[in-house]
Protein backbone atom coordinates (compact mmCIF):
# COMPACT_ATOMS: atom_id res chain seq x y z
CA UNK A 1 0.00 0.00 0.00
CA UNK A 2 1.23 3.48 -0.70
CA UNK A 3 0.10 6.49 1.19
CA UNK A 4 0.35 9.91 -0.26
CA UNK A 5 -0.77 13.04 1.42
CA UNK A 6 -1.14 16.01 -0.77
CA UNK A 7 -1.64 19.14 1.24
CA UNK A 8 -2.18 21.16 -1.92
CA UNK A 9 -4.78 18.75 -3.26
CA UNK A 10 -8.08 19.37 -4.97
CA UNK A 11 -10.49 20.03 -2.13
CA UNK A 12 -10.37 23.61 -1.00
CA UNK A 13 -10.36 23.95 2.75
CA UNK A 14 -11.48 27.49 3.28
CA UNK A 15 -13.36 27.88 6.51
CA UNK A 16 -16.03 30.24 5.34
CA UNK A 17 -17.27 32.74 7.84
CA UNK A 18 -20.85 31.56 8.00
CA UNK A 19 -23.56 32.64 10.37
CA UNK A 20 -24.76 30.57 13.33
CA UNK A 21 -21.36 28.92 13.63
CA UNK A 22 -21.89 27.73 17.15
CA UNK A 23 -25.38 26.43 16.45
CA UNK A 24 -24.07 24.41 13.52
CA UNK A 25 -21.29 22.94 15.66
CA UNK A 26 -23.79 21.96 18.33
CA UNK A 27 -26.10 20.36 15.77
CA UNK A 28 -23.23 18.42 14.18
CA UNK A 29 -22.25 17.12 17.62
CA UNK A 30 -25.86 16.36 18.52
CA UNK A 31 -26.13 14.33 15.34
CA UNK A 32 -23.07 12.37 16.45
CA UNK A 33 -24.74 11.49 19.78
CA UNK A 34 -27.85 10.49 17.91
CA UNK A 35 -25.96 8.17 15.57
CA UNK A 36 -24.24 6.61 18.56
CA UNK A 37 -27.56 6.02 20.30
CA UNK A 38 -29.00 4.41 17.18
CA UNK A 39 -25.96 2.13 16.91
CA UNK A 40 -26.18 1.01 20.55
CA UNK A 41 -29.63 -0.58 20.68
CA UNK A 42 -29.01 -1.72 24.28
CA UNK A 43 -29.47 1.87 25.36
CA UNK A 44 -32.73 2.18 23.49
CA UNK A 45 -34.06 -1.07 24.88
CA UNK A 46 -33.21 0.23 28.32
CA UNK A 47 -35.26 3.40 27.99
CA UNK A 48 -38.07 1.54 26.26
CA UNK A 49 -38.57 -1.41 28.60
CA UNK A 50 -37.79 0.17 31.94
CA UNK A 51 -40.83 2.52 32.05
CA UNK A 52 -43.17 -0.21 30.87
CA UNK A 53 -41.99 -2.47 33.67
CA UNK A 54 -42.48 0.33 36.19
CA UNK A 55 -45.99 0.90 34.94
CA UNK A 56 -46.90 -2.78 35.12
CA UNK A 57 -45.48 -3.20 38.59
CA UNK A 58 -47.16 -0.14 40.07
CA UNK A 59 -50.48 -0.58 38.34
CA UNK A 60 -50.96 -4.16 39.39
CA UNK A 61 -49.34 -3.94 42.82
CA UNK A 62 -50.64 -0.59 44.01
CA UNK A 63 -53.49 0.22 41.68
CA UNK A 64 -56.20 -1.42 43.76
CA UNK A 65 -54.91 -0.10 47.07
CA UNK A 66 -54.36 3.50 46.00
CA UNK A 67 -57.13 4.22 43.54
CA UNK A 68 -59.56 1.40 44.08
CA UNK A 69 -59.13 0.15 40.52
CA UNK A 70 -56.29 -0.19 38.05
CA UNK A 71 -57.78 2.04 35.36
CA UNK A 72 -58.02 5.13 37.53
CA UNK A 73 -54.60 4.44 38.89
CA UNK A 74 -53.10 4.17 35.41
CA UNK A 75 -54.57 7.59 34.58
CA UNK A 76 -52.95 8.95 37.71
CA UNK A 77 -49.61 7.19 37.26
CA UNK A 78 -48.71 7.41 33.59
CA UNK A 79 -47.98 11.14 33.23
CA UNK A 80 -45.70 10.98 36.27
CA UNK A 81 -43.93 7.87 35.03
CA UNK A 82 -43.30 9.71 31.79
CA UNK A 83 -41.42 12.40 33.69
CA UNK A 84 -39.44 9.79 35.60
CA UNK A 85 -38.55 7.93 32.41
CA UNK A 86 -37.18 10.97 30.70
CA UNK A 87 -35.21 12.03 33.77
CA UNK A 88 -33.64 8.59 34.07
CA UNK A 89 -32.82 8.81 30.38
CA UNK A 90 -30.83 11.92 31.18
CA UNK A 91 -28.65 9.82 33.48
CA UNK A 92 -27.22 8.03 30.44
CA UNK A 93 -26.04 11.36 29.05
CA UNK A 94 -23.68 11.80 31.96
CA UNK A 95 -22.38 8.25 31.68
CA UNK A 96 -21.81 8.54 27.92
CA UNK A 97 -20.05 11.86 28.34
CA UNK A 98 -17.74 10.42 30.93
CA UNK A 99 -16.85 7.54 28.62
CA UNK A 100 -16.17 9.92 25.73
CA UNK A 101 -13.91 12.10 27.82
CA UNK A 102 -12.00 9.10 29.15
CA UNK A 103 -11.51 7.60 25.71
CA UNK A 104 -9.95 10.77 24.34
CA UNK A 105 -12.68 11.49 21.78
CA UNK A 106 -13.27 14.81 23.49
CA UNK A 107 -9.55 15.66 23.35
CA UNK A 108 -9.94 16.00 19.64
CA UNK A 109 -12.97 18.26 20.04
CA UNK A 110 -11.08 20.35 22.55
CA UNK A 111 -8.22 20.83 20.12
CA UNK A 112 -10.62 22.21 17.49
CA UNK A 113 -11.57 25.87 17.21
CA UNK A 114 -15.10 25.39 18.52
CA UNK A 115 -16.82 26.69 21.64
CA UNK A 116 -15.91 24.67 24.70
CA UNK A 117 -19.57 24.25 25.55
CA UNK A 118 -20.48 22.84 22.12
CA UNK A 119 -19.60 19.17 22.77
CA UNK A 120 -21.52 19.21 26.05
CA UNK A 121 -24.64 20.90 24.65
CA UNK A 122 -24.44 18.67 21.58
CA UNK A 123 -24.47 15.54 23.74
CA UNK A 124 -27.38 16.68 25.85
CA UNK A 125 -29.42 17.71 22.79
CA UNK A 126 -28.62 14.55 20.85
CA UNK A 127 -29.94 12.52 23.74
CA UNK A 128 -33.33 14.23 23.63
CA UNK A 129 -34.29 11.89 20.82
CA UNK A 130 -33.91 8.99 23.23
CA UNK A 131 -36.55 10.62 25.39
CA UNK A 132 -38.91 10.78 22.45
CA UNK A 133 -38.46 7.07 21.83
CA UNK A 134 -39.07 6.36 25.51
CA UNK A 135 -42.21 8.50 25.61
CA UNK A 136 -43.69 6.95 22.49
CA UNK A 137 -43.17 3.42 23.74
CA UNK A 138 -44.59 4.36 27.12
CA UNK A 139 -47.70 5.80 25.50
CA UNK A 140 -48.21 2.73 23.36
CA UNK A 141 -47.92 0.45 26.37
CA UNK A 142 -50.18 2.76 28.36
CA UNK A 143 -52.79 2.82 25.64
CA UNK A 144 -52.89 -0.96 25.46
CA UNK A 145 -53.37 -1.11 29.23
CA UNK A 146 -56.25 1.35 28.99
CA UNK A 147 -54.74 4.81 29.47
CA UNK A 148 -56.72 7.57 27.76
CA UNK A 149 -55.84 11.23 27.35
CA UNK A 150 -58.33 13.18 29.47
CA UNK A 151 -57.71 16.57 27.91
CA UNK A 152 -56.71 17.02 24.29
CA UNK A 153 -53.79 16.34 21.98
CA UNK A 154 -52.20 19.82 22.05
CA UNK A 155 -52.14 19.77 25.85
CA UNK A 156 -50.54 16.31 25.83
CA UNK A 157 -47.90 17.42 23.36
CA UNK A 158 -47.30 20.46 25.57
CA UNK A 159 -46.78 18.11 28.53
CA UNK A 160 -44.20 16.12 26.55
CA UNK A 161 -42.33 19.22 25.41
CA UNK A 162 -42.38 20.68 28.89
CA UNK A 163 -40.94 17.42 30.26
CA UNK A 164 -38.18 17.46 27.68
CA UNK A 165 -37.32 21.08 28.35
CA UNK A 166 -37.30 20.40 32.09
CA UNK A 167 -35.04 17.38 31.66
CA UNK A 168 -32.69 19.33 29.40
CA UNK A 169 -32.19 21.74 32.30
CA UNK A 170 -31.97 19.12 35.08
CA UNK A 171 -29.56 16.91 33.14
CA UNK A 172 -26.81 19.52 33.53
CA UNK A 173 -26.45 18.29 37.12
CA UNK A 174 -25.61 14.87 35.72
CA UNK A 175 -23.44 16.37 32.99
CA UNK A 176 -21.44 18.02 35.76
CA UNK A 177 -20.88 14.63 37.42
CA UNK A 178 -20.03 13.15 34.03
CA UNK A 179 -17.27 15.71 33.58
CA UNK A 180 -15.97 15.64 37.13
CA UNK A 181 -15.87 11.94 37.90
CA UNK A 182 -13.19 9.49 36.88
CA UNK A 183 -15.34 6.41 36.22
CA UNK A 184 -18.63 5.95 34.35
CA UNK A 185 -19.82 3.68 37.18
CA UNK A 186 -19.35 6.51 39.66
CA UNK A 187 -21.44 8.81 37.50
CA UNK A 188 -24.26 6.30 37.40
CA UNK A 189 -24.21 5.81 41.17
CA UNK A 190 -24.08 9.50 42.03
CA UNK A 191 -26.71 10.42 39.48
CA UNK A 192 -28.99 7.82 41.01
CA UNK A 193 -28.44 9.24 44.49
CA UNK A 194 -29.56 12.63 43.21
CA UNK A 195 -32.46 11.40 41.11
CA UNK A 196 -33.86 9.03 43.69
CA UNK A 197 -35.17 11.63 46.18
CA UNK A 198 -36.21 13.85 43.28
CA UNK A 199 -38.33 11.25 41.52
CA UNK A 200 -39.65 9.28 44.49
CA UNK A 201 -40.15 12.21 46.86
CA UNK A 202 -43.21 13.05 44.78
CA UNK A 203 -46.83 12.17 44.26
CA UNK A 204 -45.79 9.90 41.45
CA UNK A 205 -47.26 6.73 42.94
CA UNK A 206 -49.50 7.98 45.74
CA UNK A 207 -51.43 11.21 46.38
CA UNK A 208 -49.82 13.72 48.74
CA UNK A 209 -52.54 13.29 51.37
CA UNK A 210 -51.23 9.81 52.23
CA UNK A 211 -47.69 11.04 52.92
CA UNK A 212 -46.22 11.97 56.33
CA UNK A 213 -45.85 15.68 57.03
CA UNK A 214 -42.11 16.02 56.56
CA UNK A 215 -42.33 14.29 53.19
CA UNK A 216 -45.17 16.59 52.14
CA UNK A 217 -42.91 19.53 52.85
CA UNK A 218 -40.29 18.13 50.52
CA UNK A 219 -42.87 17.22 47.89
CA UNK A 220 -44.10 20.80 47.88
CA UNK A 221 -40.72 22.24 46.95
CA UNK A 222 -39.44 19.35 44.83
CA UNK A 223 -39.22 20.57 41.22
CA UNK A 224 -39.80 17.09 39.84
CA UNK A 225 -43.07 16.89 41.75
CA UNK A 226 -44.28 20.12 40.20
CA UNK A 227 -43.27 18.81 36.82
CA UNK A 228 -45.21 15.61 37.40
CA UNK A 229 -48.30 17.46 38.61
CA UNK A 230 -48.15 19.79 35.62
CA UNK A 231 -47.86 16.83 33.25
CA UNK A 232 -50.81 15.19 34.97
CA UNK A 233 -52.88 18.34 34.65
CA UNK A 234 -52.05 18.73 30.99
CA UNK A 235 -52.71 15.09 30.11
CA UNK A 236 -55.61 13.92 32.26
CA UNK A 237 -56.94 17.16 33.71
CA UNK A 238 -56.26 19.03 36.95
CA UNK A 239 -54.43 22.13 38.11
CA UNK A 240 -51.60 23.22 35.84
CA UNK A 241 -51.14 26.94 36.29
CA UNK A 242 -49.99 26.70 39.93
CA UNK A 243 -47.20 24.28 39.00
CA UNK A 244 -45.87 26.02 35.90
CA UNK A 245 -44.06 28.88 37.68
CA UNK A 246 -42.27 26.34 39.86
CA UNK A 247 -41.21 24.29 36.87
CA UNK A 248 -40.01 27.38 35.03
CA UNK A 249 -38.22 28.76 38.06
CA UNK A 250 -36.41 25.52 38.81
CA UNK A 251 -35.56 24.82 35.18
CA UNK A 252 -33.97 28.19 34.64
CA UNK A 253 -32.30 28.11 38.04
CA UNK A 254 -30.74 24.66 37.56
CA UNK A 255 -29.65 25.50 34.03
CA UNK A 256 -28.13 28.80 35.09
CA UNK A 257 -26.16 27.18 37.90
CA UNK A 258 -25.17 23.79 36.56
CA UNK A 259 -24.56 24.44 32.87
CA UNK A 260 -21.79 27.00 33.53
CA UNK A 261 -20.36 24.78 36.28
CA UNK A 262 -20.25 21.81 33.90
CA UNK A 263 -18.60 23.82 31.12
CA UNK A 264 -16.10 25.21 33.59
CA UNK A 265 -15.28 21.77 34.95
CA UNK A 266 -14.93 20.46 31.40
CA UNK A 267 -12.56 23.27 30.50
CA UNK A 268 -10.43 22.50 33.54
CA UNK A 269 -10.46 18.74 33.32
CA UNK A 270 -6.98 17.47 32.49
Amino acid at each position, binding site marked *: *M*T*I*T*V*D*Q*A*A*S*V*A*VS*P*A*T*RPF*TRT*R*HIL*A*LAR*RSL*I*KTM*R*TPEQLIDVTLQPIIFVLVYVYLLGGAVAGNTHDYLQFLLPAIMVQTVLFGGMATGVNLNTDIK*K*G*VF*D*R*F*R*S*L*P*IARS*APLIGSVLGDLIRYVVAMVSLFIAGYILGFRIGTNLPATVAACLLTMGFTFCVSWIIVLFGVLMREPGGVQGTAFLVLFPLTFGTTMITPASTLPGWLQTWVNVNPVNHMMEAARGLMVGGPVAEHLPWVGFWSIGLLAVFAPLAVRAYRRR*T
Partner: protein
Amino acid sequence: MTTFAFEAEGLVKRFKKTTALDGIDLAARQGTVLGVLGPNGAGKTTAVRILATLLRPDAGRAVVGGFDVLRDAAKVRRTIGLTGQYASVDEDLTGMENLVLIGQLLDLRGTEARARASELLAEFGLSEAGGRTAKTYSGGMRRRLDLAASLVGRPDVIYLDEPTTGLDPAKREDVWGIIRRLVGDGVTILLTTQYLEEADALADDISVIDRGKVIANGTPAELKRVVGGQTVFVRTADPERVTEAAAILADIAGRPAESPGRGMATVPVVGDTAFTEIVRRIDAAGIRVTELSLHLPKLDEVFFTLTGRHTEDEAA
Protein backbone atom coordinates in the same frame (compact mmCIF):
# COMPACT_ATOMS: atom_id res chain seq x y z
CA MET B 1 15.92 36.07 13.05
CA THR B 2 14.57 32.55 13.03
CA THR B 3 10.84 32.15 13.01
CA PHE B 4 9.64 29.25 15.08
CA ALA B 5 6.41 27.49 14.14
CA PHE B 6 6.05 26.74 17.81
CA GLU B 7 8.12 27.59 20.81
CA ALA B 8 7.78 26.68 24.47
CA GLU B 9 9.81 28.23 27.26
CA GLY B 10 10.18 27.05 30.82
CA LEU B 11 6.99 24.98 30.86
CA VAL B 12 6.13 23.63 34.28
CA LYS B 13 3.20 21.32 35.01
CA ARG B 14 2.46 19.57 38.29
CA PHE B 15 -0.20 16.99 38.98
CA LYS B 16 -0.65 16.87 42.73
CA LYS B 17 2.69 15.42 43.85
CA THR B 18 4.12 14.52 40.41
CA THR B 19 6.05 17.16 38.54
CA ALA B 20 5.33 16.16 34.94
CA LEU B 21 7.22 19.09 33.40
CA ASP B 22 10.00 20.83 35.24
CA GLY B 23 10.86 23.83 33.09
CA ILE B 24 11.02 22.53 29.56
CA ASP B 25 12.02 24.42 26.39
CA LEU B 26 10.98 23.14 22.97
CA ALA B 27 11.03 24.86 19.59
CA ALA B 28 10.77 23.97 15.93
CA ARG B 29 11.50 26.07 12.87
CA GLN B 30 8.86 26.32 10.16
CA GLY B 31 8.71 23.20 8.02
CA THR B 32 10.87 21.00 10.23
CA VAL B 33 10.29 17.99 12.46
CA LEU B 34 11.11 18.23 16.14
CA GLY B 35 11.56 14.80 17.67
CA VAL B 36 10.85 14.62 21.39
CA LEU B 37 12.49 11.50 22.70
CA GLY B 38 11.87 10.18 26.18
CA PRO B 39 10.97 7.10 28.20
CA ASN B 40 7.56 6.40 29.80
CA GLY B 41 6.50 9.17 32.11
CA ALA B 42 9.09 11.65 30.82
CA GLY B 43 6.41 14.25 30.17
CA LYS B 44 6.01 13.97 26.39
CA THR B 45 2.22 13.79 26.38
CA THR B 46 1.95 16.56 28.94
CA ALA B 47 4.07 18.86 26.76
CA VAL B 48 1.99 18.04 23.67
CA ARG B 49 -1.24 18.68 25.55
CA ILE B 50 -0.05 22.09 26.67
CA LEU B 51 1.00 23.01 23.14
CA ALA B 52 -2.40 21.79 21.91
CA THR B 53 -4.24 24.03 24.45
CA LEU B 54 -5.70 21.02 26.27
CA LEU B 55 -3.77 21.72 29.46
CA ARG B 56 -2.72 24.96 31.10
CA PRO B 57 0.89 25.15 32.24
CA ASP B 58 1.59 26.13 35.85
CA ALA B 59 4.46 28.28 34.64
CA GLY B 60 6.18 29.11 31.39
CA ARG B 61 4.99 30.29 28.02
CA ALA B 62 4.16 28.65 24.72
CA VAL B 63 3.57 30.26 21.35
CA VAL B 64 2.21 28.38 18.32
CA GLY B 65 2.02 30.04 14.90
CA GLY B 66 2.67 33.35 16.62
CA PHE B 67 -0.23 32.91 19.07
CA ASP B 68 0.00 32.41 22.79
CA VAL B 69 -1.58 29.11 23.89
CA LEU B 70 -3.27 30.76 26.86
CA ARG B 71 -4.30 34.13 25.49
CA ASP B 72 -5.08 33.15 21.89
CA ALA B 73 -6.13 29.53 22.35
CA ALA B 74 -8.81 29.77 19.64
CA LYS B 75 -6.27 30.93 17.05
CA VAL B 76 -3.80 28.26 18.09
CA ARG B 77 -6.55 25.66 17.56
CA ARG B 78 -7.01 26.91 14.01
CA THR B 79 -3.31 26.32 13.37
CA ILE B 80 -2.83 22.84 14.78
CA GLY B 81 -3.76 19.24 14.15
CA LEU B 82 -3.46 16.73 16.99
CA THR B 83 -3.06 12.98 16.91
CA GLY B 84 -3.02 11.97 20.53
CA GLN B 85 -1.24 8.99 21.99
CA TYR B 86 -4.51 7.12 22.47
CA ALA B 87 -6.61 6.91 19.35
CA SER B 88 -9.31 9.55 19.63
CA VAL B 89 -11.55 8.36 16.83
CA ASP B 90 -15.16 7.68 17.65
CA GLU B 91 -15.62 3.93 17.54
CA ASP B 92 -19.36 4.03 16.97
CA LEU B 93 -19.01 6.23 13.89
CA THR B 94 -17.75 5.10 10.50
CA GLY B 95 -14.42 6.34 9.20
CA MET B 96 -16.28 8.65 6.87
CA GLU B 97 -18.56 10.02 9.60
CA ASN B 98 -15.56 10.68 11.84
CA LEU B 99 -13.85 12.81 9.21
CA VAL B 100 -17.01 14.58 8.03
CA LEU B 101 -17.82 15.56 11.62
CA ILE B 102 -14.43 17.17 12.01
CA GLY B 103 -14.83 18.95 8.69
CA GLN B 104 -18.16 20.34 9.88
CA LEU B 105 -16.64 21.48 13.14
CA LEU B 106 -13.96 23.24 11.09
CA ASP B 107 -16.74 25.13 9.27
CA LEU B 108 -16.55 23.34 5.95
CA ARG B 109 -19.78 23.16 4.01
CA GLY B 110 -21.45 19.76 3.90
CA THR B 111 -20.26 18.90 0.39
CA GLU B 112 -16.75 20.20 1.07
CA ALA B 113 -16.54 18.20 4.28
CA ARG B 114 -17.56 15.02 2.49
CA ALA B 115 -15.15 15.63 -0.40
CA ARG B 116 -12.27 16.27 1.97
CA ALA B 117 -13.16 13.15 3.97
CA SER B 118 -13.20 10.91 0.87
CA GLU B 119 -9.94 12.43 -0.28
CA LEU B 120 -8.25 11.66 3.03
CA LEU B 121 -9.74 8.17 3.24
CA ALA B 122 -8.32 7.47 -0.22
CA GLU B 123 -4.91 8.87 0.71
CA PHE B 124 -4.75 6.69 3.80
CA GLY B 125 -5.92 3.52 2.07
CA LEU B 126 -9.22 3.53 3.98
CA SER B 127 -11.67 4.11 1.13
CA GLU B 128 -13.11 0.64 1.37
CA ALA B 129 -13.31 0.70 5.17
CA GLY B 130 -14.77 4.22 5.18
CA GLY B 131 -18.34 2.96 5.52
CA ARG B 132 -17.63 0.66 8.45
CA THR B 133 -17.67 1.74 12.09
CA ALA B 134 -14.20 2.36 13.49
CA LYS B 135 -14.89 -0.36 16.07
CA THR B 136 -14.17 -2.91 13.34
CA TYR B 137 -10.80 -1.37 12.39
CA SER B 138 -7.42 -2.90 13.17
CA GLY B 139 -4.93 -0.95 15.29
CA GLY B 140 -3.08 0.27 12.23
CA MET B 141 -6.28 1.41 10.53
CA ARG B 142 -7.36 3.33 13.61
CA ARG B 143 -4.01 5.06 13.74
CA ARG B 144 -4.31 6.05 10.11
CA LEU B 145 -7.86 7.32 10.62
CA ASP B 146 -6.63 9.27 13.61
CA LEU B 147 -3.85 10.81 11.52
CA ALA B 148 -6.31 11.62 8.74
CA ALA B 149 -8.59 13.28 11.30
CA SER B 150 -5.83 15.64 12.36
CA LEU B 151 -5.26 16.69 8.73
CA VAL B 152 -8.82 17.60 7.78
CA GLY B 153 -8.24 21.32 8.20
CA ARG B 154 -4.78 21.30 6.57
CA PRO B 155 -3.06 22.53 9.74
CA ASP B 156 0.32 24.25 9.65
CA VAL B 157 1.53 22.55 12.80
CA ILE B 158 0.87 18.90 13.60
CA TYR B 159 1.46 17.11 16.89
CA LEU B 160 1.96 13.37 16.69
CA ASP B 161 2.19 11.72 20.10
CA GLU B 162 3.92 8.35 19.65
CA PRO B 163 2.25 7.74 16.29
CA THR B 164 3.98 4.41 15.65
CA THR B 165 3.87 2.78 19.07
CA GLY B 166 2.20 -0.59 18.73
CA LEU B 167 2.46 -0.74 14.92
CA ASP B 168 4.29 -3.50 13.07
CA PRO B 169 7.38 -2.48 11.05
CA ALA B 170 5.55 -2.22 7.72
CA LYS B 171 2.83 0.01 9.19
CA ARG B 172 5.50 2.06 10.87
CA GLU B 173 7.13 2.66 7.49
CA ASP B 174 3.74 3.81 6.15
CA VAL B 175 3.42 6.37 8.90
CA TRP B 176 6.99 7.54 8.32
CA GLY B 177 6.11 8.04 4.65
CA ILE B 178 3.10 10.16 5.61
CA ILE B 179 5.21 12.29 7.92
CA ARG B 180 7.85 12.87 5.22
CA ARG B 181 5.19 13.92 2.73
CA LEU B 182 3.69 16.37 5.20
CA VAL B 183 7.05 17.94 5.86
CA GLY B 184 7.61 18.15 2.11
CA ASP B 185 4.48 20.27 1.95
CA GLY B 186 5.84 22.70 4.52
CA VAL B 187 4.06 21.48 7.64
CA THR B 188 5.87 21.69 10.97
CA ILE B 189 5.68 18.54 13.08
CA LEU B 190 6.22 17.71 16.70
CA LEU B 191 6.78 14.00 16.98
CA THR B 192 7.17 12.21 20.27
CA THR B 193 8.72 8.79 20.32
CA GLN B 194 10.53 6.27 22.45
CA TYR B 195 12.76 5.17 19.55
CA LEU B 196 16.00 6.93 18.70
CA GLU B 197 15.82 5.18 15.35
CA GLU B 198 12.52 6.91 14.58
CA ALA B 199 13.69 10.33 15.72
CA ASP B 200 16.87 9.83 13.69
CA ALA B 201 14.90 8.85 10.58
CA LEU B 202 12.45 11.76 10.68
CA ALA B 203 13.56 14.62 12.88
CA ASP B 204 15.61 17.67 11.97
CA ASP B 205 16.17 18.32 15.65
CA ILE B 206 15.81 16.10 18.66
CA SER B 207 15.11 17.02 22.27
CA VAL B 208 15.68 14.22 24.72
CA ILE B 209 13.55 14.63 27.81
CA ASP B 210 13.64 12.87 31.12
CA ARG B 211 11.61 13.55 34.26
CA GLY B 212 10.19 16.72 32.76
CA LYS B 213 13.54 18.22 31.79
CA VAL B 214 15.38 18.48 28.47
CA ILE B 215 18.61 16.58 29.00
CA ALA B 216 20.00 16.81 25.47
CA ASN B 217 19.21 18.83 22.43
CA GLY B 218 20.53 18.96 18.88
CA THR B 219 20.46 17.51 15.40
CA PRO B 220 20.43 13.73 15.13
CA ALA B 221 24.11 13.86 14.08
CA GLU B 222 25.08 15.94 17.09
CA LEU B 223 23.14 13.70 19.40
CA LYS B 224 24.70 10.56 18.00
CA ARG B 225 28.12 12.07 18.53
CA VAL B 226 27.28 12.68 22.17
CA VAL B 227 25.91 9.23 22.79
CA GLY B 228 28.76 7.44 21.01
CA GLY B 229 27.24 7.03 17.59
CA GLN B 230 26.37 3.62 16.33
CA THR B 231 27.20 0.06 17.18
CA VAL B 232 28.56 -2.57 14.81
CA PHE B 233 27.38 -6.10 15.41
CA VAL B 234 28.94 -9.20 13.87
CA ARG B 235 28.11 -12.91 14.08
CA THR B 236 30.63 -15.21 12.43
CA ALA B 237 29.61 -18.36 10.59
CA ASP B 238 32.33 -20.25 12.44
CA PRO B 239 32.11 -19.27 16.12
CA GLU B 240 35.82 -20.08 16.55
CA ARG B 241 36.81 -17.21 14.30
CA VAL B 242 34.95 -14.55 16.32
CA THR B 243 38.17 -13.55 18.11
CA GLU B 244 39.72 -12.55 14.78
CA ALA B 245 36.61 -10.51 13.91
CA ALA B 246 36.64 -8.93 17.36
CA ALA B 247 40.25 -7.89 16.86
CA ILE B 248 39.35 -6.14 13.60
CA LEU B 249 36.44 -4.33 15.30
CA ALA B 250 38.69 -3.26 18.16
CA ASP B 251 41.36 -2.07 15.81
CA ILE B 252 39.03 0.18 13.83
CA ALA B 253 36.93 1.39 16.75
CA GLY B 254 40.00 2.04 18.88
CA ARG B 255 38.43 0.27 21.85
CA PRO B 256 37.91 -3.35 22.87
CA ALA B 257 34.93 -5.20 21.40
CA GLU B 258 32.39 -6.89 23.65
CA SER B 259 30.85 -10.28 23.18
CA PRO B 260 27.08 -10.40 23.82
CA GLY B 261 27.10 -14.17 23.17
CA ARG B 262 28.93 -17.07 21.57
CA GLY B 263 30.17 -16.23 18.06
CA MET B 264 29.12 -12.57 18.43
CA ALA B 265 31.05 -9.35 18.81
CA THR B 266 29.94 -5.75 19.06
CA VAL B 267 31.63 -2.38 19.36
CA PRO B 268 30.53 1.28 19.27
CA VAL B 269 31.96 3.20 16.31
CA VAL B 270 32.27 6.84 15.31
CA GLY B 271 32.74 8.35 11.87
CA ASP B 272 31.19 7.70 8.48
CA THR B 273 33.74 5.21 7.21
CA ALA B 274 34.15 2.83 10.15
CA PHE B 275 31.50 0.38 9.01
CA THR B 276 32.69 0.06 5.39
CA GLU B 277 36.24 -0.29 6.68
CA ILE B 278 35.15 -3.17 8.92
CA VAL B 279 33.33 -4.86 6.05
CA ARG B 280 36.42 -4.62 3.86
CA ARG B 281 38.81 -5.94 6.52
CA ILE B 282 36.56 -8.88 7.47
CA ASP B 283 36.18 -9.77 3.82
CA ALA B 284 39.95 -9.51 3.25
CA ALA B 285 40.60 -11.82 6.21
CA GLY B 286 38.24 -14.37 4.65
CA ILE B 287 35.95 -14.54 7.71
CA ARG B 288 32.42 -15.68 6.76
CA VAL B 289 29.65 -13.93 8.69
CA THR B 290 25.97 -14.74 9.14
CA GLU B 291 25.18 -11.24 10.33
CA LEU B 292 26.93 -7.92 10.09
CA SER B 293 24.96 -4.83 10.99
CA LEU B 294 25.07 -1.24 12.12
CA HIS B 295 22.70 -0.15 14.91
CA LEU B 296 21.68 3.10 16.45
CA PRO B 297 21.87 3.02 20.21
CA LYS B 298 18.63 2.00 21.91
CA LEU B 299 16.84 4.65 23.96
CA ASP B 300 18.05 2.89 27.06
CA GLU B 301 21.66 3.22 25.95
CA VAL B 302 21.16 6.88 25.09
CA PHE B 303 19.79 7.38 28.53
CA PHE B 304 22.56 5.55 30.19
CA THR B 305 25.09 7.71 28.41
CA LEU B 306 23.27 10.94 29.21
CA THR B 307 22.14 10.29 32.75
CA GLY B 308 24.07 7.31 34.05
CA ARG B 309 20.73 5.63 34.71
CA HIS B 310 18.76 3.03 32.79
CA THR B 311 15.20 3.85 31.73
CA GLU B 312 13.85 0.97 33.81
CA ASP B 313 14.76 2.99 36.87
CA GLU B 314 11.77 5.21 36.09
CA ALA B 315 9.35 2.58 37.18
CA ALA B 316 10.87 2.35 40.63
